[in-house]
């Protein structure tokens, strides 16, 4: 069954005949004639049809995989404070980890042209391009020309080495691209607001097309040395549909004062522009 994206988007969309038939079949499974007896149930039936059609069917690549290709961008400020896209806006820190974090360097590594790591690279406020070939998904990020060339064939993770972007292994679960990332080390931050992690960080990213112009990005963030339990982030990625839009160079170099020269860190007239205040301060995750 294929449904239109507009239908699942809201009341403005129109259901395809296939969706109506599906809802009729669903109603038909109920004891005969009851639908007629309860006409006020009709809106509920349409609501159920809406759920049935909420599953957007992504177009396929030549090898039959969901097509995620295109230029995508997050439109949020999670790179400054990841709590914005965290479930419940809270990060379940272990007390010892919170203490460690309070003592950590107060300047975002990115302010010195450091690497953003995973998952932060996914919500840096710059576009990135996904390119697919059979057995491989390539992420090209405009931000500091990062790239991830990820095999979708299973293999064990590397052992005994850390990379800023970790070691990624992917597979398909239905329409979702699942990327398992380990070997990330402890040098990167999750955002500018000093949300940190240890070298035990394990990230599982999920990319699911939810429309012609959207991907839902979800990630489970686990780190038994830092968090009491795994927690989740979720955000939409939006396709950049500007005609002729292409990725360009986005470089980072350090100025005379050792600070990065790029759009995120312009020197401020007063205050330290390198230290960001958390948007969602909390007893569990807020460093004040």
């Amino acid at each position, binding site marked *: 069954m294929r449904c239109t994206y507009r239908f699942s988007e809201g009341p403005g969309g129109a259901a395809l005949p296939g969706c109506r038939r599906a809802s009729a079949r669903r109603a038909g499974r109920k004891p005969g004639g009851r639908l007629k007896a309860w006409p006020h149930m009709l809106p509920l039936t349409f609501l159920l049809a809406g759920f049935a059609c909420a599953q957007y069917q992504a177009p396929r690549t030549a090898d039959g995989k969901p097509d995620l290709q295109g230029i995508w961008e997050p439109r949020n400020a999670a790179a400054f404070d990841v709590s914005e896209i965290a479930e419940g806006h809270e990060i379940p820190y272990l007390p010892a980890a919170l203490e460690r974090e309070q003592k950590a360097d107060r300047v975002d590594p990115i302010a010195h042209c450091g690497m953003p790591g995973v998952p932060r690279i996914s919500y840096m406020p710059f576009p990135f391009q996904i390119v697919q070939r059979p057995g491989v998904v390539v992420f090209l990020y405009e931000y500091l020309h990062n790239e991830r060339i990820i095999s979708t064939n299973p293999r064990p993770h*590397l*052992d*005994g*080495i*850390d*990379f*800023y972007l970790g070691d990624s292994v992917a597979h398909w679960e239905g329409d979702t691209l699942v990327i398992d990332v380990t070997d990330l*080390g402890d*040098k990167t931050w999750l955002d500018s607001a000093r949300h940190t992690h240890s070298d035990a960080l394990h990230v599982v990213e999920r990319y699911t097309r939810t429309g012609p112009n959207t991907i839902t990005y979800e990630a489970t963030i686990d780190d038994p040395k830092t968090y009491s339990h795994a927690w989740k982030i979720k955000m939409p990625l939006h396709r950049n549909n500007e005609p002729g839009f292409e990725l360009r160079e986005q470089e980072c170099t350090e100025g005379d004062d050792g600070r990065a020269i790029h759009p995120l860190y312009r020197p401020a007239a007063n205050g330290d522009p390198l230290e960001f205040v958390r948007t969602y301060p909390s007893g569990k995750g807020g460093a004040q």
Partner: protein
Amino acid sequence: MKWKLSVLAIAAGLLLAAVPVRAHHSFAAEYDKSKPLKLTGTVTKFDLTNPHSWIYIDVTGADGKVVNWGFETASPSNLYRRGFRKDTVKVGTVVTIEGFQAKDDTHTGNAQRLTLADGTHYVMGTEENPG
């Protein structure tokens, strides 16, 4: 924490003394092939990291004086392909490093080969001069 800071201070001092930029550079620009080194010492700091790893060892001279030497190695990906892992050496591990000294005669060098006490050895050289 204090020892960490002092090691960092030494490391920073060495870095500053050697060259202003520690990013990407050529072997020939910084190291002297006519100054081969073979030093045995105890690891004081090591981090398998991009772009190049540095390994620091305390070397006790004939006069009993301890000097901290810093050696640049190949990129972590290349070391990994040669069998080297982040826990192959730790602080306190005794290693012998063969390489070439920096042109500016500081206590820095380019590592070509690292040998553990049990005789296991690794090629450590950079891509341009893999040893």
